Every structure is written in C-alpha cells, then in structure tokens.
C-alpha cells in the first residue's frame, strides 16, 4: 500500500486527488464538481430517475462507459487523462453497483428526493418483530449445540428457517417491484414529485432488515 498526500503523488493526481475522490462519492468540490452536479447515478447511465429499470440494458450501458473510461485503455494518454479515467471509472462502477441492486437503488432514489429511512432504519420493522425473535432463538440453540457437540436436528431447524426467510425475501422483493412501478407512475403523472413514500420506505426497510437477518443466519450455519 502506498499513502500519498497532496502534491507529492504523481500517479493519483495531486491536490484534486482529494477533491475528485470526494466528488466521486458524495458530490464534493473542486474541478470535477460539474460532473456530479449534472450527472447523478441515474443520469451517469443516461437513465431517467425511475425506480424500475431494465438490468440487462443497464449492464450494456455500464460496459459501454467502461470501454471509454477504463484506465487500461488509456495507456497512450497523458498521466492526467489516465488519472481522470481512473476516477471516472470508479464513479461509474460505484453508480452501477448502487443502481443494479433494488434496495440500494431505492435508498439512493429516496436520497435524491430528499428522503431517507431515517431512524426507522435502525428499528426492527413491526412486520418482522415476531420473525426476528424466532430466528434469534433458533440461532441461540444452534450456538449452544455447536459448543456442546453436533446436533443435526437443530441445524435442520435453522435451515428450515433460512428457507422461509428466503421465500419471504422473494415475496417482499416482488412487493418492492410493484411499489416501484406505482411510485414511478405517480411521479410521472403528478408534479414530478411522488406523494406518498411511506409504503416504499416500509418495504425497503423490511427488505433491508431481512437481508441482514439472512446474512446472520448464513454466518451461523457456516460456522456450525
């Protein structure tokens, strides 16, 4: 690893190395700022700010941009252009990662509309309270038998719970997609600003939480 600072580094460019990287993530200051001000993650791919997107089409757009900006294809350019290509590629990659995942996309879309899950994000969504309790209990059992020796019964119970969580995730994902479609229509029809985002937020929050839960269960299953 190398650590550099300000003007001492020539590969990652000086001075604006900082501000440009900042821009890439949070829309900061300096020379490259026009890029972010005009181009959010959706417009990076020439897409409208809609919640429903065609993933195949998004990927083609991502590949097309990469072919123009990737540092590997800029080796015959000046170091400044190579550095700019590096940053632009990093931005595009980040945008792609965010937009292609429905939950990340939803959260990002909310942030563009000045909204966020806020403190609701930290609380267990009410729809999930019972499930969370049950899962934690099962995981507790699993940990107990793991320390004391193998017990396949508990493991298969946890696996069953994992299966149920998977189905539930699929179900909530479907609801999210339906809601995305409705929200897009509302936004397009009215003032350009969607009216009620409470349901979108609730579904996003539920899915977000489910994902965390599934990750925990998988981790315990792996360890067992």
């Amino acid at each position: 690893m190398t650590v550099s600072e300000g003007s001492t580094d020539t590969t990652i460019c000086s001075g604006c190395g900082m501000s440009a990287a900042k821009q890439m993530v949070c829309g900061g200051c300096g020379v490259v700022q026009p890029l972010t001000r005009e181009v959010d993650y959706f417009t990076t791919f020439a897409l409208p700010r809609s919640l429903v997107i065609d993933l195949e089409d998004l990927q083609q757009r991502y590949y097309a941009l990469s072919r123009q900006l990737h540092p590997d294809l800029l080796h015959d350019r000046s170091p400044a252009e190579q550095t700019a290509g590096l940053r632009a590629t990093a931005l595009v990659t980040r945008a792609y990662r965010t937009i292609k995942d429905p939950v990340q996309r939803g959260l990002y879309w909310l942030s563009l509309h000045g909204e966020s899950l806020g403190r609701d994000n930290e609380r267990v969504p009410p729809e999930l309270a019972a499930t969370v309790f049950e899962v934690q209990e099962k995981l507790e059992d699993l940990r107990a038998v793991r320390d004391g020796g193998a017990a396949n019964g508990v493991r298969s119970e946890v696996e069953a719970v994992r299966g149920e969580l998977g189905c539930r995730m699929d179900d909530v994902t479907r609801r999210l997609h339906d809601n995305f479609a409705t929200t897009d229509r509302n936004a397009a029809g009215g003032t350009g600003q969607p009216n009620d985002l409470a349901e979108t937020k609730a579904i996003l929050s539920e899915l977000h939480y489910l994902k965390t839960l599934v990750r925990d269960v998988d981790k315990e299953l792996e360890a067992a």
Partner: protein
Amino acid sequence: MERIVGIDLGTTNSLIAYLDDEGPRVIADRATGRASVPSVVAFRPDGSNIVGDEARALVGNPDTTTIQSVKRFMGLGEEHLTDSDRGQYAFAGGDQAGAVLRFQVGDRAISPPEVSALILRELKRRADEALGDPVTRAVITVPAYFNDSQRQATKDAGRLAGLKVLRLVNEPTAAALAYGLDSMTEGSVAVYDFGGGTFDISILKLERGIFEVKATNGDTRLGGDDIDASLSEWFLAGAGLPTELASTREVQALVRRAAEDAKCRLSSADETEMEVTLADGGRYARVLSRSEFDAVIAPVIERTLGPCRQALKDAGMTPSDIDEIVLVGGSTRIPLVRTRVEALFERAPHCELDPDQVVALGAGIQAGILSGRKKDMLLLDVVPLSLGIETMGGVTTRLIERNTTIPTGVVDTFTTAVDKQTAVDVHVLQGERELAADCRSLARFSIPIEPATAGFPRVEVTFMIDANGILNVTARDVRTGQERSVDVKPSYGLTDEEVERMLEESIDFAEEDVTARLLAEARTEAEGMLRHTERTLRDAAERLGEGEAEQIRGSMAVLRDLLTGTDYNEIREQIDRLNELSTPLAQRIMSDAIKGSLERKSASDVV
C-alpha cells in the same frame, strides 16, 4: 514501438509471453527450447546466483542455498511463518513486528522480492534476446487472492528487475482472457486455478470482449507444495529413514523432490515407486498406489472446495448457472482434482489450453490491451478482500467490501475522542474478520491535525483502489482545509528508499551509471508526456478554457528546455507541474465522455 511483455511469476515455474498479430505466444529459452523457468534460485558461497533448471538441479546440495517457492513468502512478515517454513529455510530474524521477512543466505539477508527479481531478470533476458530490444515494461500476474502487501511486493520485485510494472493481473482472470480469446465463449465461466503454491477460484461473465469478474476467492498458501508436503510426510512415516537423517534440510529437500516427481508420475500411472538416494549412497523407497495417493492428498484437495462454494454464493449463482469450467495450474493435472471439481460444478472441466501456459498467455494478451494492440477486450476485475480501518474497541469497520469492481474509491471522515489531540491514527486493515487483530494489517499512519475539542476535528481519508487492486490513501484536515502529509509505514513491505538502495547496490546496476539511467528514464517519460499533451491539446481544442492552452504550452516549453540539460530531478518536477496544469482539461474530457455516451444513448433510444 517497444513491446510490453506479460509475465506469469509462478510458485514453481515462471513464463514470459507477448502478443503478436497471430495471438499470444510464450517466449522459450533460445538454448534449451524450454518455455518455463523453474522458480528456483541457488546462491553459491561466493554470493553469485543461478536461476532456473540449473538451480533446481542444485536442490539438496549442501554447498549452495537454494530457494524454491519464494512466491509463498511475498509480502509476509516473520510472524506468518509456519514450522514447516522454518524447517525448510533459515530466516534472518531479529527485525521488529511488521518488518518484511528475509532469508538468511550465507552472511546476507535477502527479502522475497529480491529473490523474485532474480527470476524476473532471467525472464527479461530471454525476452530481450528473442525480441531484439530490451524490454522495460511488463504486466505481471498475481493470485487473485493476493492481499495488498503481496501485490506491492510483486511490484517491488518488478522494479528491482528493472521492469516498470504497468499492471498486475489476477491469474484466473488472465487465464479467462486466454481461454475467452481462444474459444470465443460467452456466458459464465468458473476458473479453478490450483498452482504450485496458491489456489484461486474466480467466476466471470464473458460478453462481447468484456471480462467481468463476479466473485473471487482462494487461499494464497495452498497448492502443489502442500501435496508434496503430505506425500513427504507419508514417505518418511514408512520408508525407514533414520530420524536424525530425516530432519536435516538437505534430506527434506530430496524427499520433497521425490514427492514432486512421484506426484507427476501418478497423473498417468496407477502405481509408482517413490525413492530417495542420499549423498552417502543410502537408498530409501516406498511404493505408492493411486488410491493411496488419493487418500493422502484428499484433505488438501478438500480445502479448495470451500472457497469455490463461497465464490458461487458471492456471485449469487449456483453450479448450474456456470456454463464452463476452466482448469489452470499444474496441480489440476491430478485426476482426483478433476473428479472433485467435476462433482462440485456438475460438469466436465475444460482443459484444451496447456494449464501451465494459459496464465502467461493471458498476461501477454493484457500486455497487448495496454499497448493498444488489442482494442476489443477489457477486464473488469474485483478486489478479493474487504478493506477497512480499525475503530473504537478494536473492531474492523469495512469501507470497501470484497468483490467490489475496481477501480473504486471511498471517502470517510474521522474525528477525535480526546480534547486537543494533535493527530488521528489510522490503522488500515484487509480481511473479512470482525476484529481488527484477526485481519491483515496493511499500514498504520498518523494524520497531524489542528488541536481542538474532542469531536470537532474532521479528517477526511480517501481510499482509492486502482486496477491493480492496490490501495492508495490520501488524507486531509477538513476544518483547516489543509492537506496534511501522511507518514506511513507499509506493513511487511519494503519502503521506496529500500528499493532504491537495493537497485543501486545490485551487481548489475553497479556496472552502469545509475545517474545516467535515471536521466534516460526521466527523458523518456518527458518525451511521452509532451507527445500526449500535444495530442490532447489538438483533440480537445474546443474544451480549452481561456488562456489554458497558453499556460500548458508555456509549461511544455520549459520541459523541452530542461530536456537539453542533465538534471533528472528538475525534469521530473517539471513533468509533475505540467501534469498538474493539464489535469483540469483531462477531467473535462472524461466528464464529456460520460455525457457524450449519454447523448448517443438517448438518441438511439428514440430510434
């Protein structure tokens, strides 16, 4: 134009390749016709060294110190050594924690990058001869699962060998390039790369020349070496060698060698005799059947399957989503390996390309991509391990998740916990574990700040991972707006000063004038810079701001003037200044590229 070469710097064997009009080709040794150089270095008592086949023949010779599998030691510190490592080699020791390890060779202490550099020099010599021009720029492959320190160590080795390392490419990705170009396959491909000392699994999506890595996993200390070790153990348990003999380094090396040979024979034979003849003429042997061999090595093969499952999971795939499996690395010649891989992925693996050459061929293709010879292919690789920092309570806070496509960057802001702190300490970590102590320490550094009440200072730290998977960190005190210098000590790595010193001390460079070489390098870079900038000014005339062209041209004129002189430091500084001046223009060109593609897309959407 001078060619860029691709190098497979392997644990057991190394190869060098390049791309010509007909495709990638490996450069064989002119004298012997052999394609690969065994990655073995032997040091004679007088300090001179031998690389390759001749060095391999000296393994077990008590008059020389031979180092094999040096790749396993790249980027490591003493605390990472196993008992078996210590049984095999003598280490210099005595260094403090976080220092790079060094082999004890006679009265010298030699770091792994220096040993690797000797192998690279041998490869470079071959290429210089074959291509007629000295080669100075290279692509080098590394295991996908190599961490930052291991990557950095590989770059250092290149530099020590007099090569500018333009790019590190992950070995399975390189293999996929060679395979993809050869077969014109599209779809999901799993590359199972089981080499001499490392194991990687990568899952890629191939589509119209884009090679997108979806997930990668592996073990940088698992390979054919472990199979040899298991076989050696099996041999020593029943061959009747007296214990006091069996524990010497020379005999261990001979047994290893015998294990390696027996393993290779069993890839086709059903039974073989593993035998060792000692220096005193004593002969020991044991018959090994294929089924016994399978039983001995099964635990090693088993260890490759966990990473395969994890990679599939990270890619969001099941075995049935994989269209093709490509086998890479000498260890995939073992029939049991093929059986297990076939069972896991539920399909027969491909092995049309020579598993020993496919990585080098891919490195040659990537070299062609970088030089502009190959324009229709592009790699989108990932970072194999998560990166983060240590936060309160010794916990790892992840900033970049594993399998994130690179290049990528992230910014985070830190503050202080104590009043009037004059610095913020940042401990950079790599790995998947929750506790900082369980992750790999990449670096520690301290950012000086303006003292203030706790919680007030804001230090912005930017992590940027380049296409090589190497991390760059920059830092800024937000409150004062000052860019602060960061003092960093890379863990288990050589500092720039050490590399410089080694270069100056190395025998080959002592013969030439170091200053002359540095001047020549600076001039070449300056000329390239002038050429590129001229082109940019011409192509981007309409994007130039007021007075911008004049400023840039002024700076170019100064650089041209300096070229007539002999001060390489001045030339370098002027290159930096010109670079800084042309940066805003370059950034506008890149933003326009994004917007340009946007307009074209919208237009085609309308149609």
